[in-house]
């Protein structure tokens, strides 16, 4: 690559075409949009007129290691980088004294690789630049719908997760941003009002309603949920079961704690009833002691659900932490007043098959 002039300065820094090709191929193979774009920026080590160098330790992450080189996906990316027309374009863009025009063939492969690696933000950015993001999103939803038509739930859920993962938040300000999985914020909205009646609680709503809410919450998209609305309830429940496990790979560990917390909650309920009976004939001092013990017991349920204590934690702090660590968990809990303090307790509909399928129901 020839030396170039930039802002009146001439450098004769040698840049190995081999290193450039390898760095680009690695970014494409990894589906790493940020690294790919960086390689074409004015201060990239791939440019002859930049003072940055590939042999600097801080840029070692740009180059492939032996394991990467052995990967067929990397070799495919490298072949594409070395294709005559692509390489000619890469060279001319790295020498030009203006913002680079990225090669679309490489970007498209990068986006597909990003989807394969589950890097949906990176894929969305690349597809968006190619102006195919919304159409690709639709293709993923359509393929997922076809999978659901043939009862392939796992593929259906996977397709929907990709489709929603490629969503863009065009309402973001000042620039459009990918949608983010902010379950800890959405969970608070789900439990925003204290349930005055049992049916106000998200976990106890009628099956149809609770499935729609759960799908909308876990898919992070009302549109995606609406696409599924016409499907039979049994299929949507199976979809939700798979989705819960995909959203939370640690679900089984949570379910074990949930079962223990459920048993604790049943014992607490029995105790509340017994204490209420006892307090009718008790002195005021004894009633205060009973209330303190009840609250302590109720707080232990929250600690069990989360698996650890939040010092001086209020119910909403436990709920946020729970939503962050186990997003689907907040669909199976409810707010409960004990004395004048609120806690969260396990709650589920006994006539719904889903809690049992998700391992939430304690064994008799």
């Amino acid at each position: 690559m020839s030396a170039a002039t930039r802002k009146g300065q001439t450098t004769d820094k040698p840049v190995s075409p081999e290193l450039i090709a390898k760095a680009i191929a690695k970014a494409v193979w990894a589906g790493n949009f940020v690294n790919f774009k960086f390689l074409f920026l004015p201060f990239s080590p791939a440019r002859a007129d930049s003072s940055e160098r590939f042999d600097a330790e801080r840029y070692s992450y740009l180059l492939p290691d032996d394991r990467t080189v052995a990967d067929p996906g990397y070799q495919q990316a490298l072949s594409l980088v070395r294709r005559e027309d692509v390489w000619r374009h890469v060279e001319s863009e790295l020498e030009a004294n203006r913002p680079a025009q990225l090669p679309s063939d490489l970007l498209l492969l990068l986006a597909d690789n990003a989807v394969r690696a589950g890097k949906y933000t990176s894929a969305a950015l690349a597809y968006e630049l190619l102006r195919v993001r919304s159409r690709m999103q639709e293709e993923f939803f359509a393929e997922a719908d076809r999978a659901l038509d043939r009862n392939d739930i796992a593929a259906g859920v996977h397709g929907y997760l990709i489709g929603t993962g490629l969503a863009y938040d065009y309402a973001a300000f000042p620039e459009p941003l990918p949608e983010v999985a902010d379950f800890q914020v959405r969970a608070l909205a789900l439990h925003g009002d204290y349930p005055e009646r049992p049916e106000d609680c998200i976990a106890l709503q009628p099956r149809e309603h609770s499935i729609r809410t759960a799908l909308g919450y876990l898919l992070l998209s009302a549109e995606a949920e609406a696409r599924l609305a016409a499907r039979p309830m049994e299929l949507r429940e199976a979809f939700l079961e798979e989705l819960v496990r995909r959203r939370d790979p640690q679900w089984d560990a949570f379910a074990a704690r949930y079962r223990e917390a459920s048993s604790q909650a049943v014992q607490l309920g029995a105790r509340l009833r017994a204490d209420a009976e006892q307090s009718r004939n008790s002195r005021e001092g004894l009633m205060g002691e009973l209330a303190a013990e009840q609250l302590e017991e109720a707080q232990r349920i929250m600690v069990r659900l989360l698996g650890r204590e939040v010092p001086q934690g209020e119910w909403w702090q436990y709920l946020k932490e729970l939503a962050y660590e186990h997003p689907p968990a907040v669909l199976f809990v409810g707010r409960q007043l004990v004395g004048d303090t609120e806690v969260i307790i396990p709650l589920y509909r006994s006539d719904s098959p889903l809690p049992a399928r998700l391992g939430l129901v304690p064994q008799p």
Partner: protein
Amino acid sequence: MTDAEKGYVDYFEVLGLDSAAKPGEVRKAYRKVMKDLVFEIHSAEITEERRAHYLLEMAKLNAAIYILRDNDLRETYWRERQEVIDLEHEWRAAADAGSSEMDALRRRFDATVRHFLSHYVEEAMLDAGRDRECVEASGWNPAHERHASRILRHYRHGLYQDILERLPYHEVTPPRIDWDERRSIVAALVTGDKR
């Protein structure tokens, strides 16, 4: 609206009028269309999706009367709309010719179109929601505004995307997309690699 004007919101078209319509015709058309819309809203089952749709339709109608009933505002809107359309043509011509002014024109066009859409889509729709005539006809209130602000930003960016999609590529080389091949890649990604 022609394909070349897609994205540049035409408030005459929103009310089903031509661009020579007088303020009196604008008011008459607005009342009729708004009445039909309010009737439709009351007779429909409201889902989250439909709420967003109706809020947007209502906001568009409110912005249409807010801008078109006032002679000065209407003339400024129509002139600025034409200016941004002309600027798009100018940039496209420069891009086709490979002119050295291409990049400067693109930046100017981008700033102008963003201003046009912010001003005449988002801001005008929110301002119209506080206008007495619009409030009386549509029942628009602060709760609507809270819900609508996000929807309007989304709509504004959707229009921007509509415009962007027909413009020459500048950040990437024009992609050659084979959609049959794309579909097979999508199928492989969805079904072949589930976990």
